[in-house]
C-alpha cells in the first residue's frame, strides 16, 4: 500500500519534470525561429564578466557602467533585446556565457578580460552574425574588435604620486595574476617611481588571483608592517582587501600616514574611514582605465553601423582612455604631487617619453 503511494508520488514528480522540460523546449524553438526579423530594428548589447563578478569595484563594474550608460542614453531596457550582463563563476563558464548571449541575439557582446581571448576567438568564428568586443586582449577576427589600454601610462603617474607621497621610501605593488595587462601596470608603476626617486624600494607581490580579497588583505598587512607606506594594487577584487587593511590600520592609529592607490576606476569611495567622528580617506589616488569610455565608444559605433571589426583600438593618456583620479585632499604635499603629475602627463602626451609596458622595456628605461 505505502509502496504504491510512494511510487505514485515518484511518478508524479517525474511526470512534472517531463512536462516542464517539454514546455521549456517549445518556447525555445519559438524564440529560435522568430529572431530574424527584429534584428535590424533593435540594437542590443551585453557583456560577460570574468570571475571577478560585476560588482568588483574595478574593471568588470566599469564595463557594466558603460553598458548601462549606453543603454540609458538610447532608451534601452535591461534584459533580452536591450542590455544585460552574465557573470562567470569559473573559467569554464566563459564559453557558455558568450555563446548564450550570442544565441539570444544580442548584436554586440563584450568579453571583459584577457582570459576570454581564446573563447572569443573560437566563438566569433562560429557565430559570424554577432559582433564581439574583447577588452584587454587581441583577437584577429572580422567580427571582433580588440580594445587595449596603455595601462602603463596611468600607473606611471600613480608611481609618480606614490614616490612623492612616501615618507619611508618604501612602496608596495600588489598584482593579480602575472599576465601581460598586469605587467603593464607593474612596469609603468615602477618606471614612475624610478623617475621621481631611483632610491625608493618597491616591494612587488603577486597574489595569483583577482577575486581573493582576504589574500589582498594579508599581503597588504605584511607590506605595511615592513615599513611600506604606499601600496598600489592592480588585482581587481583582491585589491579590496588592501583597502580593508589600510582602513583597519588607520582606525587603530589615525595619525599614521599610510596610503593605498586604487585601480581601473576612481576607487576613492572605498577608502573612507571614520575615526572619532573625523572622516579620513586612505586612498591617495587611482590609476583609472577608461573601460567605461571604451565600451560606450564601441557600442555607439556599432549601433551606428560603423563597427570597427578586426581592428585593435588602443586607448592611452592622449586619447583620454587612461588617467589618474583626483588626488586625496588629506595628503600633505598635494600641490607638489599635482605639479609633478601634470609635468609627466604632458611629457607622455607629447611623446617625450615612452612608458615601458613590459619588464624587459623597464630595464632599459631612463627617465630624463
Amino acid at each position: 500500500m505505502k509502496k504504491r503511494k510512494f511510487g505514485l508520488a515518484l511518478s508524479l514528480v517525474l511526470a512534472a519534470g517531463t512536462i516542464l522540460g517539454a514546455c521549456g523546449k517549445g518556447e525555445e524553438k519559438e524564440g529560435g525561429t522568430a529572431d530574424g526579423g527584429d534584428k535590424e530594428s533593435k540594437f542590443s548589447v551585453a557583456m560577460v564578466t570574468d570571475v571577478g563578478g560585476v560588482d568588483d569595484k574595478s574593471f568588470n563594474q566599469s564595463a557594466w557602467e558603460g553598458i548601462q550608460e549606453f543603454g540609458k542614453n538610447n532608451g534601452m531596457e535591461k534584459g533580452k533585446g536591450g542590455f544585460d550582463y552574465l557573470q562567470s563563476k569559473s573559467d569554464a563558464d566563459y564559453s557558455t556565457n558568450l555563446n548564450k548571449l550570442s544565441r539570444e541575439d544580442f548584436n554586440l557582446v563584450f568579453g571583459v578580460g584577457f582570459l576570454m581571448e581564446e573563447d572569443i576567438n573560437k566563438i566569433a568564428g562560429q557565430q559570424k552574425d554577432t559582433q564581439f568586443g574583447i577588452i584587454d586582449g587581441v583577437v584577429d577576427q572580422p567580427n571582433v574588435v580588440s580594445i587595449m589600454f596603455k595601462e602603463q601610462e596611468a600607473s606611471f603617474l600613480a608611481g609618480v604620486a606614490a614616490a612623492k607621497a612616501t615618507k619611508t621610501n618604501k612602496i608596495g605593488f600588489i598584482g593579480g595574476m602575472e599576465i601581460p595587462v598586469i605587467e603593464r601596470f607593474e612596469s609603468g608603476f615602477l618606471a614612475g617611481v624610478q623617475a621621481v626617486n631611483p632610491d625608493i624600494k618597491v616591494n612587488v607581490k603577486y597574489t595569483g588571483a583577482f577575486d581573493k580579497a582576504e589574500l589582498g588583505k594579508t599581503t597588504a598587512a605584511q607590506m605595511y608592517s615592513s615599513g611600506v607606506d604606499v601600496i598600489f594594487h592592480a588585482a581587481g577584487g583582491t585589491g579590496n582587501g588592501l583597502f580593508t587593511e589600510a582602513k583597519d590600520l588607520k582606525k587603530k592609529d589615525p595619525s599614521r600616514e599610510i596610503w593605498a592607490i586604487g585601480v581601473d576606476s576612481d576607487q576613492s569611495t572605498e577608502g573612507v574611514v571614520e575615526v572619532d567622528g573625523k572622516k579620513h580617506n586612505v586612498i591617495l589616488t587611482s590609476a583609472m582605465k577608461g573601460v567605461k569610455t571604451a565600451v560606450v565608444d564601441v557600442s555607439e559605433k556599432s549601433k551606428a553601423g560603423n563597427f570597427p571589426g578586426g581592428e585593435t583600438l588602443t586607448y592611452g593618456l592622449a586619447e583620454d582612455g587612461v588617467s589618474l583620479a583626483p588626488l586625496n585632499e588629506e595628503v600633505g604635499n598635494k600641490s607638489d604631487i599635482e605639479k609633478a603629475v601634470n609635468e609627466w602627463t604632458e611629457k607622455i602626451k607629447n611623446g617625450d617619453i615612452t612608458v615601458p609596458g613590459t619588464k624587459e622595456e623597464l630595464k632599459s628605461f631612463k627617465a630624463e
Partner: protein
Amino acid sequence: MSNRFKNLIVPVLAVVLGMLVGTIIMLVTGYDAGAAFVALIEGAFGDIYYIGETIRQVTPYILAGLAVGFAFKTGLFNIGVEGQLIVGWLASVWVGVAFDLPKIIHLPLAVLAGAAAGALWAFIPGFLKARFRVHEVIVTIMLNYVALHLSNYLIRTVLSDKSDRTPNIHDTASLRSPFLEGLTDYSRLHWGIVIALICVFIMWFILQKTTLGYELKAVGFNQHASEYAGMNVRKNIILSMVISGAFAGLAGAMEGLGTFGYSPVRGGFTGVGFDGIAVALLGGSAPIGIVLAALLFGSLKVGALNMPLEAGVPNELVDIIIALIVFFVGASYMIRIFIERLSKKKGVK
C-alpha cells in the same frame, strides 16, 4: 518498506526539499520562482547546444563522484579529489603537449597519464593512513593546496615561459570531436562522457564482481573484522585510495583534454572535486546513483547560467539550492527517521 527503496527515496526527497526551500527563498526575496525553474530547465535542456554543454559538465562530475564514492565504500573520506583532479589535468595536458604521436597511442597515453597522476597523488594519503594511521582527511586537504600551487608553478616555469597557461594540446591527444560539436551546435561536448560511463561500469564491476571489491567493502564495514578474517587491511586502504585517485585524475584529464585543451594557472580550486563529494553523497556512493546525481548537479550548474538572463534571478541562488540539497542529503538520517515514523504509524492503524 524495503531498504533498497528507502535508499532511493531519501535522495529524491532531499532534492525535492532542497528545491522547495529554494522556491520559498526565491518567493521571499521577491523573485519569480516559476520563471526561474523554467529558465533553469531551459538553460540545461532547452536547446541541443545546452544539452551538449550539460553533458560536458556532467562528465567530470561523474568521475569526481565515482572517486569520492569509491573511497566511501572502503570507509575513507577522500576530500583530495580536487587536488588529484588538478594533477591529473596537468599530467594529461603535459603528455598532450610534449609528445607527437599518432592519435591511437597519444590519446590513450594522455588519458592514462591523468589517471596515473591522480592515483599517485592519492597514494600518498593512502600510504600514510595505512602505515602511520594519519587521518586521510587532513592529508588530502593539505595535498589539495600542494597540487594547486605545484601545478601553477610547473605551468609557469616548465610548461610555458611565464605564461598564464600551457600551450594547447596536440590534436592527436584531444578528446574533442567535430562530430559531437556539429551534432550539438558547437557545444564543447567531447568523448569524455564515454570514458566516464565506462568508469561507472568499472566501479560497479570491481565492487560487485571481484574479490578485491568484496574485500574493500568489508574493510569499509569493519576493519577489525576484516583483519580477523585474514584480509590485508593496509593493502586495501592504499588500493582504495589509488583507484579513487585514478578516477579523480581522469576527471581532470576530461577537463584538460576535452573541455579546455590546456591547463591554466589557477587562482583557486576548480570546485569540481568538492562538488564530487556532494554528487557521491546524493548518489549514495552507488555507480548508477552517482550518474543520476551528476546529471542533476551538471544540469543545475549549466542551467543556472540561464537564470539571470531569462528570469532575473542571480545564479548565486542556484548555489543556495545546491547547498540545500547537500544539506538535506547530509541530514538524510533525519529524513529516514521521519519516514520510519510515518510508516510505523500507518502500520499500527
